[in-house]
């Protein structure tokens, strides 16, 4: 990273050298891309969602390309928290970048188990809670109900001092309401958004392109949806918001900061450009330099809302 604009931002007590993190589920456990990408240029890494036990995930096929995006239905296949701490942490601990570990599970107890297991593990800078895991029994989703979302954060708040980042799903009527409730419950930051519910069908075979029928849409296609979510959340909470969705370039990242994000995550972009976490940060730095912006923090929420002639009335 060249010297230049100040790129540091804070997520609660966690300081990032630049605002660009690799998103959960799109960067494995760091070591895979670490074979050929310099991870110390990343603002941070968020690891794949962990469950208490190793989890097999959904039946394949698990991905399909769509217009400017992709669908996935991985189903949280992961090594489980024990193997993570044993096999993955030694590598991750050595990387000179912020490490955010993503925590998942079915019922609250599972989140608690993962969090407890990580509590005494050195080298973790924050926990991101994947609130969009449907409860295996009830099929309910923590981040679709403000009370359940708050309950989950409250349960974890008591057992860890690490910053808690609540990761929200966009598949709700009012994402800002969920954000407010997790803020009240003690979350230190909000990540938005997880994938949009989507599906695709192979008309030749008449079968869904995903083994799990529906899946999550990510990539540039969803960027406008993510932007609107971040904007709405940032205006309603005081904690930092991490913008996620379709970010491919430094200009995309700047757009999220202007709309209210403090940091961003690149997900699908890493598949296209494994070094996206670094190149997006570098492009942000270049853009700031060219635009006379001394610190990326000056961008956060700097959106100019024009005075409204008429109240905006209808979406279409």
């Amino acid at each position, binding site marked *: 990273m060249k010297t230049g604009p100040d790129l540091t931002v804070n997520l609660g007590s966690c300081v990032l050298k630049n605002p660009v993190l690799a998103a959960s589920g799109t960067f494995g456990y760091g070591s895979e891309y670490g074979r050929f990408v310099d991870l110390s240029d990343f603002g941070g890494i968020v690891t794949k969602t962990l469950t208490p036990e190793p989890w097999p*995930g959904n039946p394949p096929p698990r991905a399909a390309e769509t217009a400017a995006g992709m669908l996935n239905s991985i189903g949280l296949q992961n090594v489980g928290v024990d193997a993570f701490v044993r096999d993955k942490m030694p590598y991750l601990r050595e990387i000179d970048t912020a490490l955010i570990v993503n925590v998942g599970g079915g019922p609250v107890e599972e989140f608690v188990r993962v969090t407890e297991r990580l509590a005494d593990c050195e080298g973790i800078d924050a926990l991101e809670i994947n609130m969009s895991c449907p409860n295996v029994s009830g099929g309910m989703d923590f981040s679709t109900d403000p009370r359940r979302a708050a309950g989950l954060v409250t349960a974890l708040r008591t057992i860890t001092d690490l910053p808690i980042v609540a990761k929200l799903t966009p598949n709700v009527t009012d994402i800002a309401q969920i954000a407010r409730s997790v803020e009240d419950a003690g979350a230190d930051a909000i990540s938005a958004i997880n994938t949009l519910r989507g599906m695709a069908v192979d008309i030749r075979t008449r079968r869904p392109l995903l083994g799990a029928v529906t899946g999550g849409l990510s990539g540039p296609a969803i960027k406008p949806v993510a932007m609107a979510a971040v904007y709405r959340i940032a205006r309603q909470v005081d904690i930092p918001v991490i913008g996620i969705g379709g970010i491919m370039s430094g200009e995309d990242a700047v757009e999220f900061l202007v709309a209210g994000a403090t940091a961003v995550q690149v997900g699908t972009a890493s598949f296209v450009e494994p070094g996206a976490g670094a190149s997006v940060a570098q492009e942000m730095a270049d853009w700031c330099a060219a635009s006379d912006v001394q610190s990326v923090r000056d961008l956060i929420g700097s959106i100019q809302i024009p005075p409204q002639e008429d109240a905006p009335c209808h979406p279409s």
Partner: protein
Amino acid sequence: MSTIPICQSDAEILSNREIGPGLFWIDLLAPDITRHALPGHFVHLVVSDVSEDSSRQVWLRHTPLLRRPFSIAERDPDNGIFGLIYRIVGGGTEILATRRSGERVDVLGPLGRALEPLQSGRPAIMVAGGVGVAPFLSLAQETVRDGRARPEEMTVLFGAATAGLLSGEEKFRKLGLHVKLATDDGSTGYHGLVTSLLERELDRSPDGCAYLYACGPTPMMRRCQEIARDEGIAGQVSLEGIMPCGVGVCMACVVPCVEPGDRLSPHRYERVCDTGPVFDMQEVVL
């Protein structure tokens, strides 16, 4: 996770030409990738052709969005060149076919697990369906180059819909391998499925095959599994899978696998890009 070093290379296209109806051969200059590639390895290509510095909207540069995986079909390590054979099946390969020599493509590789090397004294048959021939072109070339096994110990059974799609077979002949062809339309070689050709071969010379490789459409590979199981022949299959990342991070490309020797063991999902694309013949559930 393979220990072969992965490189990301801005490879120059040296040639990109049609070698059959909708079938192309592309040569790429990428010394780092070429150096370490083994037969069975694949590369992950960005096919979109809008140049880096061109448009203000980055998503225009990224249409289609994802990389496309292709098996390495040939390697010229002295000159740092490797070749791919590809068929136009959709938008990505369509765009790739329009790329010209001198242009550059972003390549990630070599990726995946390599094929089990041939061994002298263990005659092997390679069953290839369509562009599934690619890894076997590499395998034959490297084996002959290394002298690990004699060309006569290798038989290629190569099937495709029609004669024009059997491009590559001349390379096997030049290396001195046995080559038998099969076409669905009977335009050349055996008229029928390449797996029927395999059965006929095994009938004719029961000792002619101690190891079986297969790469091609899933039904073809499934049938090869059955035949290998029935005949008690060891071997490997090389699979495809939808590959967003290609390097083992996303968990999208998985295939159900069983424990070695236990077809009824509970399935576990293994990544085709990383644990594969080459699997033990009986390990994967197709």
